[in-house]
Structures are given as structure tokens and as C-alpha cells.
């Protein structure tokens, strides 16, 4: 469930656009006003505001935001304002560029979005970057990472709840055999993880646990320094228990010496309208402190206020 709070009576998009314009005018910027508007509108409403702003002032709202804002606060606002598909396309493209390369972001987007959402990302990617997502991922990854990531971003998984238990058993066995032989990049492992529906995967991995005594991720911890194994474990988590994946990401981002703002911003802006409620519950359960408190303790200023607004703090 979403933590985004939207007021009961939402002003017309043109009014919101006008408010934002006012927030930019004059000396300095009224950041609180920006948060009051943008952090309290859903994706459809934000799209309308962007259109309205563009028509009224002849400039893309995002461009104005880029001019007026800076650093972590700016990134949070820009990312959140984007339409979810565009946002993911932006994050994916960023992840393929040399200095910001991150296989994790690609895996995260591919595994935690629904089949239709992922396809919308691919469409948005065409529109914005004049290339396909899969060709950029293929071009900028190598070896085992490419073998895993290209099929992951190209998947259009069946989304039904039907499960074939015979298949679950046989594929759990295949996974077990390959893992025991340390063939982590085996084609069968990749096939099962990149093509089966999430419901089927859940059934397969539950059976794995029952039949072999260990959760698959425990068996995949054989080499703690193997980066590919880490990615594989994370992919499995994303596909089956995404809120636990995001909780861990948040925990690591906040607890680290300093804060990994990039991960923190990404998780909050991409999940605020999806499953942040569950992530918060998971966070509190795991850390005995609320996410609000953790974020407040580790960030400050407008950036902190933006994040807190997105996770549902304060008034609408």
C-alpha cells in the first residue's frame, strides 16, 4: 500500500502549476511549497501539473526544478515528479552509464515491477533514449551479469496465481543440483529465475526450503564475496519478498557511515506509491525503530522533509 498522502480536495492542475511557479519566483525558492504540492499528488495528478505548467510558462516543470533546486533534495523532487515508467527508464539508463553503473538498480527494476509496469518502462525508454532498454543493458554489461540481466529486463512474466506443483518440485531439484555443483550461472538457473511467473517461483522456492532444509538464499551464500551471488540472492528476494529487499536496502543506506542518499532516495521515491506501508512495517519489525525516526536522525533540511512527506508523515 502507498504512503503517499493526497488531500481530499485537490486543486486544479493549473492552480498547482501557478503555486509552483510562485515558489520559484523571487529570491530563493520556497521549498516547502514545492513539497506541499508535489509530495502530495499522485502520478496522474503530477502529469497533469506538468502539462499545465508547460502550457502556462513555456518550460518543462522538470527543467524549472533543475534550475531552482540542488543536490539531494533536487534529486528526490525530480525523481518523484516523473511518471513512474519514465522514472524507471531514467534510473535504468543511469545504471548503464559508466560511472553510475549499477547492476543492482537494473535487477531491482526488472524484478520488483509488475509485467505491465516493466513493459511501460521499456516503452518510456524508447521514447526518451531512442534505443531499447535491452540493447543498452546488453551493451553495457558483460559475462554472467549480462546473461542474467538481459533476460530479466526483457521478461513479460505471466501474472496469474496458478501454480504447477509438479513443476515446482522438478525445478526446485534442478536449482538444488546446480547450486550444489556451484554452477550458479547455469542456463537452467537463469531460465527458471528469468521466465517463470512470480507465483510459480514462490511455489518452487517454498518447496526447495521444505525438501532441502534450507532456504535457497542460504545455500547461495557459499562465497560471501562473490558479487554475482549477491546479485542472484537479491534478485530472488526482489521476485518473492520485495518489501524485505527494500527494508534491507534502506537499513544499509541509513546505517552506513554517512548515508547512501542515492539508494535512500530511490527506494522512497519509487515505493511511496506502491508498497511503502509494508516496507515501513518490515523496517520497524526488523530494527525496533520507525523508518521516520531513522530517516529524521540521518538526514536534514528540505531533503529530510521531502522524504518524510513521501512516507506519509505529517498532514496532507
Amino acid at each position, binding site marked *: 500500500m502507498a504512503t503517499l498522502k493526497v488531500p481530499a480536495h485537490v486543486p486544479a492542475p493549473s492552480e498547482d502549476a501557478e503555486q509552483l511557479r510562485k515558489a520559484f519566483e523571487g529570491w530563493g525558492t520556497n521549498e516547502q511549497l514545492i513539497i506541499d504540492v508535489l509530495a502530495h499528488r499522485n502520478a496522474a495528478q503530477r502529469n497533469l501539473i506538468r502539462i499545465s505548467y508547460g502550457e502556462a510558462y513555456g518550460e518543462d516543470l522538470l527543467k524549472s526544478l533543475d534550475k531552482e533546486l540542488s543536490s539531494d533534495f533536487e534529486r528526490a523532487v525530480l525523481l518523484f515528479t516523473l511518471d513512474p515508467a519514465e522514472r524507471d527508464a531514467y534510473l535504468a539508463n543511469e545504471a548503464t552509464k559508466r560511472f553510475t553503473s549499477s547492476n543492482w538498480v537494473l535487477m531491482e527494476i526488472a524484478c520488483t515491477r509488475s509485467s505491465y509496469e516493466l*513493459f511501460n518502462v*521499456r*516503452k518510456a525508454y*524508447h521514447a526518451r533514449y*531512442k*534505443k*531499447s*532498454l*535491452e*540493447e543498452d543493458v*546488453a551493451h553495457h554489461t558483460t559475462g554472467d551479469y*549480462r*546473461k542474467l540481466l*538481459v*533476460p530479466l529486463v*526483457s*521478461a*513479460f*512474466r*505471466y*501474472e*496469474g496465481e*496458478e501454480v504447477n506443483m509438479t513443476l515446482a518440485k522438478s525445478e526446485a531439484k534442478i536449482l538444488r543440483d546446480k547450486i550444489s555443483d556451484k554452477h550458479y550461472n547455469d*542456463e537452467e538457473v537463469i*531460465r527458471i529465475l*528469468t*521466465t*517463470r*511467473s512470480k507465483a510459480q517461483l514462490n511455489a518452487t522456492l517454498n518447496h526447495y526450503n521444505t525438501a532441502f532444509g534450507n532456504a535457497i538464499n542460504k545455500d547461495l551464500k557459499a562465497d560471501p564475496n562473490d558479487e554475482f551471488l549477491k546479485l542472484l540472492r537479491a534478485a530472488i528476494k526482489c521476485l518473492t519478498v520485495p518489501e524485505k529487499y527494500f527494508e534491507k536496502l534502506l537499513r544499509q543506506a541509513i546505517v552506513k557511515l554517512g548515508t547512501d542518499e542515492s539508494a535512500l532516495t530511490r527506494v522512497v521515491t519509487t515505493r511511496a506509491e506502491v508498497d511503502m506501508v509494508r516496507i515501513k512495517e518490515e523496517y520497524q519489525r526488523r530494527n525496533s525503530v520507525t523508518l521516520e525516526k531513522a530517516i529524521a536522525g540521518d538526514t536534514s533540511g528540505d531533503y529530510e522533509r521531502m522524504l518524510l512527506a513521501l512516507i506519509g508523515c505529517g498532514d496532507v
Partner: protein
Amino acid sequence: MADLEALIKAFSGIGVDENSLISILANSNHEHKKSLRKGYSKFFIEDENGFERLHQSTIKNLKLEFKRFRDAVVLSLLHPWERDARLIEKAMKKGPRHYSVIVEIACTRSSNELLGARKAYHSLFDHSIEEDLASHIKGSERKLLVALVSAYRYEGPKVNDDVAKSEAEILSNAIKNADKRKPIEDEDAIMILSTRSKPHLQAVYEHYNKICGKTITEDLEAEGILKDTVECLCTPATYFTRVLDAALTVDADEESKKALTRVIVTQKELREKEGYVPNKIQGILTGSYKDFILGLVARGEN
């Protein structure tokens, strides 16, 4: 004449409209039926004993005829997405000799048409195309086929010529090293063919020609569906012409003829290419199947 038309109409549905057929025939006197049979000259020949005999081979052909006729009717009635999903599923089940159909659909449809087929496949079979292909196909074709059906190619004209050139070289090397590793299993070749846009691949095709002095398809002559893949992506007209030629010969086998139905029904542009198909069809097809196909060609509709 009216009854002949009505007769043709009776055969024109999915399956034969037996009632109409019967009522026409029942209400026709001997002379009338005779003229009907004479009018339906493709099915009946003048027997030396003075009657219009149903051609022996026609009896056999009629069965096949209606089967193909029905296939053509059904294929053209189905929504294109459902049609393509069903064609892929059938081809997959029939085995390696039919995998070219999967290549044909994955590579000649637009990106959104292929997406549509993937959606339809979900609805029809409760699985994704890629999971079924990946688990069903055990041979060397698996990686390529799964990658091809998963593509959502960019459709704009923009091409990076330097990249196209280097990818032509990569493909050339993959083909040269065929004795060490099957080109169809070469990861780089698969990546290029399954992720790049069609305009880009056409540029790759041109560069390959310049570099190697031959076309990729010539060098892939022995490589089965890999050759089909390149043809469908870079020179689809050549591919379809080849398929139609194989189907429109007098001794074509059943599968080749089925290809005719599939190609004519699904390829609008080909149908609009004047002259080629209609002339050949006149010579080789018969009966209501021919009429239906000609009708499709003339209509130029999907």
C-alpha cells in the same frame, strides 16, 4: 448464376453449410445440377461415360482443400495477436523443423504486434511465451528463440554507424569460428540480433557485405533458423518470397502449402505487391481456397 453463387457461399463458412447445400441440391433438377457441376469445373471432370465426375484426386484434395480453406478463414478471422500466439505455440509443439515460424513471427511483426502476441499468449495458455519456449526447447536454438520473442525493439530510424560496423565484424567472426562454436549459440551474435533495432541491423547487413564481400545470409546458408533470423530482420521481402516460392510449386509439401496460407493472411504488404502472388495463385491453387486467397489479395486487408 444464383445457385452457383449460393453453393459457393454454402462452402464459404467455417465448415460447410450443409443445409444450404442440401436445399440447393434438393431443389435442383437434374439439368440444373448438371450445369452446377459443369460450372464447378475444377471439381468435376467430364467422364467418358457422359457425366461430370468428381475428380478422384479432388475428393482427397477437397478434404485438404477445406482444411486449408478453413485454416485460411480461421487465420484471417482471428485477432492478429491470438493468431500469432497460436501459431507460435503450435510451431513450438511441432518441433525443430517448425521453429522458423517462431522466427518469422518474432522478427517480422512490429514491436507492439509482438507485445500483443505475448499478451494473448498469457490469456490463452496461462504461461508466458518465453517460459514455454525456454522449458520446451532443449537444443541449441533455445537461447536465440527465447531472446527473439522477448525483444521490444526501438522503431526509430536512428542508427550508430560505428557500432553497426563493429557488430558486423563481431558477426563475421562468429561465423568464421563456426567450427569451434556454433554461431547460433554465440552470445554476442544473439545479443546483436535480438536487441538491436531493424534499421540498425540493416546497417549491420550492409557493413557485413562491404567487409566480407558476401551477404550475411549467403554465409549463413547452412545455419537454419539463424539464416531465417537475419533474413526476416534485414531483408523480409526476400524471406517471404522464398517461402511463397516453395509453397507455390506443384509438388510442394503440406507444410509449405500451410506456409502459403499463413504468409498471405498475415502479410498485408506482400498482398499489395501487384501481380506476383495473384498470377502464381491462378496457376496452382484450386477451388474455394484459391478464391478465398485471391479475395484476400485483392482486398489488401488484414
